[in-house]
């Protein structure tokens, strides 16, 4: 259980020496209890006390490092159940699946198709970070597939409850630090040892939440706290309950046994149904899946689910803004026309992407709109005829650019007249509503 400020205070020297930067030991203790300060900030605590307190003042949910090729990601470490309470910190990671029942050709095709989904969206790489390899009956094939997965730049999840087979697969892939998802009530001792010996994360499963809880407790008693909890695939309903209960137990009840990240195999929950898997990936991205395994990663699923993830795991305190200014695209010079938009990172990303795709040189003007989207900025008065005119003046656009064409977003077509009045030398043109229509629009414009 979490300690109260008073309990911590009792263990401090109570000298109020201020070495920790706090006026009193009591103030220090309260902050530690809230999780705002680390207990080690007081230099006057004995090793004994430190150890005792480190355990009980540790964050409610462990943060683990996972490896996907050369990239390291954090999973877990969440402190709130809802993002508005503070922020979610570790984004859900996704995996696609291989299984030893697949023929060579099938496995290669599956690998190939899912690996291809790999692109950037607002400075973030979007792809399935993991390949989840499942053992069903053919041990050699399983090990072979695990090795194949190791040849990619993705992380590996080994799904296997058979100890001998797991041992062989771990031996073959140890260098890639796979996640060994295979501990249960009957094999946990051996599996835990295998995982700790190789310094890898162990996935724990159980027939229900009680068994999962007890097995996790037993593994912790062995000294292994490098765990991920598999919510199981008995039914969609039970998997959802498990994902919520595990997270809630850790954060609400401060029950550290369940203070671990979770793994959800939506591929197994809705096998063969790409649409249902997309729905479940969405559900578990919001409700507490740390790693979400799908059968395959397609562009259709990825574009929607990765977009959702990128939104949900932004810090509510930090608006996603980019610097206002003149951004020449497609080698635009002073003779190229101007298009104006707002400084919301998402808007910039979508609009600049489409303009680049058109291949037509254009100077994209990013005005200071407080980091809001076009319509939000317009509704908030941060994108108006005056703000556009002010931008042209402040950034000295008329001296830097000779062309006098200004394309405005279709969604603020109502501003056209007013902007035209304020910028009589310019030709104000209303662009399309959606950026995707910009390619054709710019091409038509240039011809």
């Amino acid at each position, binding site marked *: 259980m979490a300690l109260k400020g008073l309990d911590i205070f009792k263990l401090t020297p109570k000298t109020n020496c201020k070495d920790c930067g706090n006026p009193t030991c009591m103030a220090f203790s309260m902050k530690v209890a809230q999780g705002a300060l680390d207990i080690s900030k007081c230099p006057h605590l004995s090793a004994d006390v430190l150890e005792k307190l480190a355990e009980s003042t540790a964050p409610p949910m462990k943060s683990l490092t996972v490896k996907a090729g050369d990239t390291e990601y954090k999973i877990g470490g969440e402190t709130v159940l809802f993002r508005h309470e503070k922020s979610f910190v570790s984004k859900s990671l996704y995996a696609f699946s291989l299984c030893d029942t697949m023929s060579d050709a099938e496995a290669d095709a599956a690998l190939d198709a899912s690996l291809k989904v790999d692109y950037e969206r607002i400075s973030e790489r979007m792809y399935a970070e993991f390949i989840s390899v499942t053992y069903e009956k053919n041990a050699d094939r399983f090990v072979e597939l695990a090795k194949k997965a190791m040849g990619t730049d993705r992380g590996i999840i080994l799904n296997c409850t058979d100890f001998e087979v797991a041992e062989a697969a771990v031996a073959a892939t140890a260098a890639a630090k796979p996640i060994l998802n295979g501990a249960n009530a009957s094999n946990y001792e051996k599996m835990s040892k295998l995982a700790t010996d190789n310094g890898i994360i162990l996935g724990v499963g159980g027939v229900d939440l009680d068994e999962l809880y007890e097995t996790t407790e037993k593994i912790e008693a062995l000294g292994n706290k490098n765990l991920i909890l598999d919510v199981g695939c008995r*039914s969609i309903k039970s998997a959802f309950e498990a994902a919520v209960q595990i997270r809630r137990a850790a954060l609400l009840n401060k029950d550290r046994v369940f203070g671990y990240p979770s793994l959800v195999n939506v591929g197994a929950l809705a096998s063969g149904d790409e649409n249902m898997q997309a729905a479940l*990936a*969405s559900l578990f991205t919001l409700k507490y899946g740390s790693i979400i395994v799908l059968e395959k990663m397609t562009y*259709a699923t990825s574009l929607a689910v990765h977009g959702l993830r990128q939104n949900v795991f932004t810090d509510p305190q930090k608006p996603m803004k980019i610097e206002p200014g003149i951004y020449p695209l497609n080698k635009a010079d002073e003779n190229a026309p101007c298009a104006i938009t707002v400084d919301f990172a998402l808007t910039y990303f979508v609009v600049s992407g489409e303009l680049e795709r058109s291949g037509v040189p254009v100077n994209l003007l990013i005005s200071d709109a407080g980091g809001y989207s076009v319509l939000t900025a317009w509704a908030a008065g941060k994108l108006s005829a005056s703000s556009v005119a002010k931008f042209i003046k402040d950034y000295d656009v008329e001296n830097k650019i000779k062309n006098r064409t200004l394309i405005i977003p279709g969604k603020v077509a109502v501003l056209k007249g007013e902007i035209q009045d304020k910028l009589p030398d310019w030709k104000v043109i209303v662009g399309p509503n959606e950026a*995707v229509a910009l390619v054709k629009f710019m091409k038509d414009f240039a011809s």
Partner: protein
Amino acid sequence: MPFKKPVQKFSAAINAVELGVGENKIVLGGQNVMPFYTFDNEIANPPKVGAEISDMGFEDQVQGITGFYADCASVADMAKKAAALDSVDFICLRLESADPNGKNAPVADCVHTAKAVSDAIDKPLVIIGCKNDEKDAVLFEKVAEALQGKNALYLSAKEENYKSIAAAVGLAYRQKVGAESSVDINLAKQLNVLISQIGVDGKSIVMNLGSAAAGYGFEYVVSTMDRVGAAALSQNDTMLQMPVITPVSTESWSVKESIATQEDMPHWGSQEQRGVSMEIVTAAADLASGSSAVILRHPASIETISKLIKELI
């Protein structure tokens, strides 16, 4: 030690709002737990799925949508076809033609369409206007008059036009008022207060908190819904206990992922499948955040989301 399950059962609940009449009427809301938390308490009225149709048809849509309605000669036929699906709980008719900046169809024509649709189906009806505040105000009044006794829901009354809409729909013709705000808990509450002050019972209001497609500012949608749900359940805020309805399709089918053709983006694959995924992912996220109803367009999305709800409840 055995696992001690946390339970969050609240004494307050979301209002249960009835839509439609007769055998197929539905109830939105009523739950006193968080979305799909059936392990905390039973959820008597699972979230509902509506099929969106438009009085302008679906000509420029993907094959799965146009194909589904290909044999329909009228909007009423489309409504009938959609309503025949088991996975559809209600029909949502968009009176897009009324838009003064578009076709600017006369109100009388829209009333006629709405009446024909209502007569053609035996499931509840939700009416979406043309998004022009003044026109919607007139339109809803006349449609509500024509649909008296049908207990339809009108989307939406906004800060700009709530007075006439709430008075006509909620008071004069005793149907359900949709209160639309823009992704902000304070605005949502304020609008509910204003509509209540006119005399409309809080239990005749359904909220549209504003929506976005996944990837397009959706974090604000999630947080607004999370906060509204928390205020309704744990703080017993009666001015935020109205069930939430979210029009998903209009957002999800207008973003690049759904409208870029395969020709334009060859490596992205089938445009139709991208649109369906966008609609499904957005809808599932809305439901997980607390929507009591979602409005969808593609038959495949409708089927998947309806199945998801059944699996979870």
